[in-house]
C-alpha cells in the first residue's frame, strides 16, 4: 500500500523519490486541511494590508510552504528531505517577518531562523550517520537496515535535538513563543498546526526507521513529553497575550503527543505491540486533532485581534457580543484543546491514557512508574489547560469590555469600515468559513472517531512494524464507542433539560438586570477579574519554575496613593540558558575580536607560532 514515486534529481546523492505510507498520510491530511483553511482565512485576514504591503510575496511563500510541507512528509530521500526542510525554514521565516517594522517581529523572525537552521545541523549529522550505516540515502533502504544499539541511541538523541527544536520540546522551544504572536494569525495557525508537527513527523520517521531502539529511549521520550507538557501549560497560564498563550499551549500539546510516542516506544522496547500501537496511534491522532483545534484557536485569535487591535487579553472582554460566531467557534476550539468529551481532543487523549494504563498494568516496575507519571501529568495538563482556557474564554469573550490602550501586536491596519463580503459581526466570510470547517472537523472526530482512528492506527502499526490485523484495536475502540454513546446520551439530556426549563418558565419574559454587585453601587468594568488575576493562584504556586516577577502594587499607609502593579512570567530556558550563553559568546568575541588587538605583529606571531607548532608536531 506504500506508493513510491521515483525520479532522478541531479544533485549529489539526490533522488526525487516520494513515498506515501500511512504515517505520511496522517500528516499529509493535516497539511492539506490546514493549508487550505489557513489560506482561505488569510485571504480575508490580509485584506486590510492591500496596497500597503507586498501581499504577492506573502502569497508566494505561503504556497511554497504548502508545497514544501507536502514534500517533507512524502520525501524518501535524505537530501530531498533536508532540502525541503531548509525551504520550510526559509519560507516560514518570510511569512513570520511580514510586519518587520516592529522590533518584536524582527526578533521573532531572527530567533526562528537561527533556531531552525542550527537545529538542522543536528539533522545533517543524524541522517549521515544513518546513511553510513545503511549505505543509502533512501529512507526505505534505511528502514531495512539494523542499527547497532549505540548508534541507534545516538541517532535518537540527535533526532531529538534536531527535530525537537522545530517541534518545540520544552528546553529548546525558544523560537516558538516569539514567532507565534509575531506572525499574522493564519501563519500562526499554520506554524502551530503544521510546522511544529513536522518536527514530530521527523521523530516518527526516525522511530519508524530505527525499529529497535535501546529501552532508555522510550523513557527519555516520555519524560520529554511530561516536561514539555507541564511546563508548556504552566507558562501558558502566566501569559497575558492571547497568541503567546496559545503558543505555549502548542508546547503543551506537543508534550502530549510526545507522551503518546514515548508510550509507544516503551511498548516496542518491551515487546508490547498493543501498547505500541495505542501510544503511537494516540500520538498521531493528537497530531491531527491538535492541528485542527489549535489552528481554529489561532484563527479565532486573529479575528479577535482584528476586532480589538490588541493581543493583550487584559484589555479585551465581552467579545462574545461583538463576535458571536467567532465566540462559539473559539469555544469549540477551547473545549477541544482541554480534551473535554464530545470533542476530538478527548478522543486522542483517551487513547493515550488507555495506552498508559495498559503500560501501567503490563510493564515491569520502571515502566509502571513512568506510565503512572505519564498518566498523572496528562491529568494535570488537562486540569491546567481547562483552567487556562477558562481564563482565555472568560476574559476575552465573556464579561464586559475592559478599558485599555489598543495597539496591534502585528501592526494590523484599521479595517476598512464598509467592505464587501462582510457578514453580520463584521468578520469577513473568508475568515469565518474556514473556522467553521475546522470546528466541524473537531466535532466530527469527537463524535465519530472511527473516521480517523483507522488511519492513525495504520500509521501506528507502520511505526511499530506490526501487522494491524494482529492487534486487537477493538479493545480500545469499543470503549470509545461507549464514550460516544454516553456523549449522545449527554446531548439528549441537554435537550431534555432545556425543554424542561422552557416548560417551567413558560412564555413569561425573562427580566434582564445588571449583574449583582453585592451591594456595591460603583461597579465598573475594570473591577472584573483579569486574566492575570485569574491565573495568579496557580502561577504563584509555581513561581520558582515560571520566573514570575511582580512590580509595584504594594499598598502602604492608611491613605494609599495611586499605584500600579504589573506581573509577568519569564521563560526560564531563555532567561537562564540561551541569553546568558549568547551574552557570554558575545563577550568573548568582543574581547578577542577586532579593536582589542591593535598590532599586525600579533597576527604575524600567530603565523610564526603555527609554523613552529607544525614543525614540532610533524617533524619530530
Amino acid at each position: 500500500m506504500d506508493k513510491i514515486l521515483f525520479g532522478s534529481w541531479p544533485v549529489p546523492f539526490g533522488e526525487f523519490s516520494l513515498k506515501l505510507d500511512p504515517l505520511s498520510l496522517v500528516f499529509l491530511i493535516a497539511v492539506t486541511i490546514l493549508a487550505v483553511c489557513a489560506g482561505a482565512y488569510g485571504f480575508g485576514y490580509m485584506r486590510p494590508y492591500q496596497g500597503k504591503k507586498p501581499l504577492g510575496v506573502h502569497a508566494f511563500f505561503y504556497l511554497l510552504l504548502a508545497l514544501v510541507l507536502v514534500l517533507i512528509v512524502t520525501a524518501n530521500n535524505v537530501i530531498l528531505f533536508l532540502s525541503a526542510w531548509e525551504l520550510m525554514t526559509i519560507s516560514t521565516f518570510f511569512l513570520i517577518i511580514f510586519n518587520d517594522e516592529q522590533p518584536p517581529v524582527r526578533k521573532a523572525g531572527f530567533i526562528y531562523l537561527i533556531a531552525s537552521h542550527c537545529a538542522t545541523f543536528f539533522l545533517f549529522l543524524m541522517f549521515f550517520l544513518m546513511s553510513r550505516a545503511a549505505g543509502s540515502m533512501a529512507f526505505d533502504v534505511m528502514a531495512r537496515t539494523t542499527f547497532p544499539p549505540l548508534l541507534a541511541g545516538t541517532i535518537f538523541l540527535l533526532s531529538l535535538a534536531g527535530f525537537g527544536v522545530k517541534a518545540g520540546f520544552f528546553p529548546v522551544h525558544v523560537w516558538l513563543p516569539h514567532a507565534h504572536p509575531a506572525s499574522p494569525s493564519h501563519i500562526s495557525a499554520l506554524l502551530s498546526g503544521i510546522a511544529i508537527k513536522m518536527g514530530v513527523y521527523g521523530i516518527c520517521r526516525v522511530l519508524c526507521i530505527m525499529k529497535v531502539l535501546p529501552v532508555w529511549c522510550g523513557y527519555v521520550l516520555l519524560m520529554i513529553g511530561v516536561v514539555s507538557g507541564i511546563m508548556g501549560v504552566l507558562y501558558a497560564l502566566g501569559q497575558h497575550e492571547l497568541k503567546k498563550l496559545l503558543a505555549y499551549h502548542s508546547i503543551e500539546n506537543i508534550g502530549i503527543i510526545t507522551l503518546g510516542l514515548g508510550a509507544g516506544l516503551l511498548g516496542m522496547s518491551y515487546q508490547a505491540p498493543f501498547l505500541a500501537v495505542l501510544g503511537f496511534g494516540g500520538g498521531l491522532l493528537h497530531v491531527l486533532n491538535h492541528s485542527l483545534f489549535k489552528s481554529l484557536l489561532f484563527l479565532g485569535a486573529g479575528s479577535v485581534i482584528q476586532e480589538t487591535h490588541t493581543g493583550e487579553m487584559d484589555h479585551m472582554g465581552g467579545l462574545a457580543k461583538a463576535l458571536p460566531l467567532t465566540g462559539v467557534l473559539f469555544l469549540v476550539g477551547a473545549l477541544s484543546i482541554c480534551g473535554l468529551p464530545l470533542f476530538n481532543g478527548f478522543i486522542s487523549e483517551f487513547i493515550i491514557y488507555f495506552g498508559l494504563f495498559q503500560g501501567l498494568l503490563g510493564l515491569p516496575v520502571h515502566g509502571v512508574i513512568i506510565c503512572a507519571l505519564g498518566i498523572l501529568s496528562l491529568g494535570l495538563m488537562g486540569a491546567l489547560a481547562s483552567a487556562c482556557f477558562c481564563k482565555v474564554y472568560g476574559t476575552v469573550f465573556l464579561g464586559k469590555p475592559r478599558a485599555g490602550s489598543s495597539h496591534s501586536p502585528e501592526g494590523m491596519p484599521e479595517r476598512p469600515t464598509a467592505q464587501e463580503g462582510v457578514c453580520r459581526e463584521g468578520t469577513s466570510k473568508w475568515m469565518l468559513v474556514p473556522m467553521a470547517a475546522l470546528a466541524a472537523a473537531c466535532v466530527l472526530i469527537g463524535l465519530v472517531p472511527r473516521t480517523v482512528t483507522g488511519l492513525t492506527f495504520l500509521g501506528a502499526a507502520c511505526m511499530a512494524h506490526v501487522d494491524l490485523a494482529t492487534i486487537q484495536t477493538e479493545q480500545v475502540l469499543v470503549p470509545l464507542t461507549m464514550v460516544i454513546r454516553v456523549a449522545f446520551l449527554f446531548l439528549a439530556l441537554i435537550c431534555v433539560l432545556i425543554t424542561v426549563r422552557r416548560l417551567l418558565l413558560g412564555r413569561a419574559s425573562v427580566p434582564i438586570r445588571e449583574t449583582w454587585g453585592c451591594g456595591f453601587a460603583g461597579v465598573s468594568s475594570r473591577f472584573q477579574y483579569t486574566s492575570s488575576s485569574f491565573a495568579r493562584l496557580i502561577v504563584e504556586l509555581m513561581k520558582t519554575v515560571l520566573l514570575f516577577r511582580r512590580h509595584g502594587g504594594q499598598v502602604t499607609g492608611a491613605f494609599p496613593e495611586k499605584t500600579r502593579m504589573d506581573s509577568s512570567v519569564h521563560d526560564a530556558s531563555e532567561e537562564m540558558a540561551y541569553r546568558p550563553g549568547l551574552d557570554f559568546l558575545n563577550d568573548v568575541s568582543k574581547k578577542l575580536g577586532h579593536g582589542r588587538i591593535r598590532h599586525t605583529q600579533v597576527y604575524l606571531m600567530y603565523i610564526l607560532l603555527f609554523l613552529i607548532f607544525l614543525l614540532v608536531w610533524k617533524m619530530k
Partner: protein
Amino acid sequence: MTLWIDVSCILVVFLALSVLATNRIVGMIKIFAVQSFILSFVPLFLHADAVSGRDITLSLVTMVLKAILVPAILFWQIRHISMRSEIKPLIGLGTSILFGAVLIAVAFWVSLSLRLPGKLLSSLVLPCSLATMLLGFMTMVTRTRAITQVLGYMVIENGIFLFALSLFDAMPVLIEMGILLDIFVAVLIMAIVLNHINEEFERTGGSAGRSKTGETV
C-alpha cells in the same frame, strides 16, 4: 671550502640574531647590510674546484642588490630624524634574544633528520638558513614600525637565499632569477606603500584612533 661556508652560515645566523637584538633602526640596517655582504660571498665557495662565471655573476648581483642598493633605499627612507629610533618594541630586547635562542634550537632540531643530498655543501646550510628565517620572522613580530618589519622580511629573504644556494645546480637559473626579481619587486612595492604609510600614520599597527565607521565604499 666547506669551512668557509660553515663560517659564513654561522655569521649569518649571528647577524640575524643581532638584528633582532638591536634597538636602533640605523644599526639594524647596517647589520643587515653586513649580513648580505657576507652572504654574497657564499656562491664563490660553492664549487671548490672551479669558480664559474655564473657564480661570480650571482655573487655580484647579490652584493649590489642586497648589500648596497636595499640598505641605501632604506637609509633614504629614514632620512628624517624622527624615524631613526625604534619606538618601544612589542617584546623587550632581552626576551627577544631568549626567544631567538629557542628558535635557533628549533631550527637545528628540525634539521636533525634531514640531510642535504648529493655532494654535500655543508651540514650547516639547512639549520642556519632555517634559523635565519625564523629570526627574521621574529624580528617582524617584535617590531612595531613598518620599516623595521621590512628589515625583518629582508632577513627572512637572506635565509631563503642561503638555502637557495644549495639548489643552485638543481634548478634552472631562469626561475631562480625570476624569483629574486619577484621578491625585489615585492620589496619595492612595499617601500612605495611605506611611503604612503609614513604620510598617513606613524605606526603600522596604529589603528587605535580609527573611527568605527571609517570604511570606504
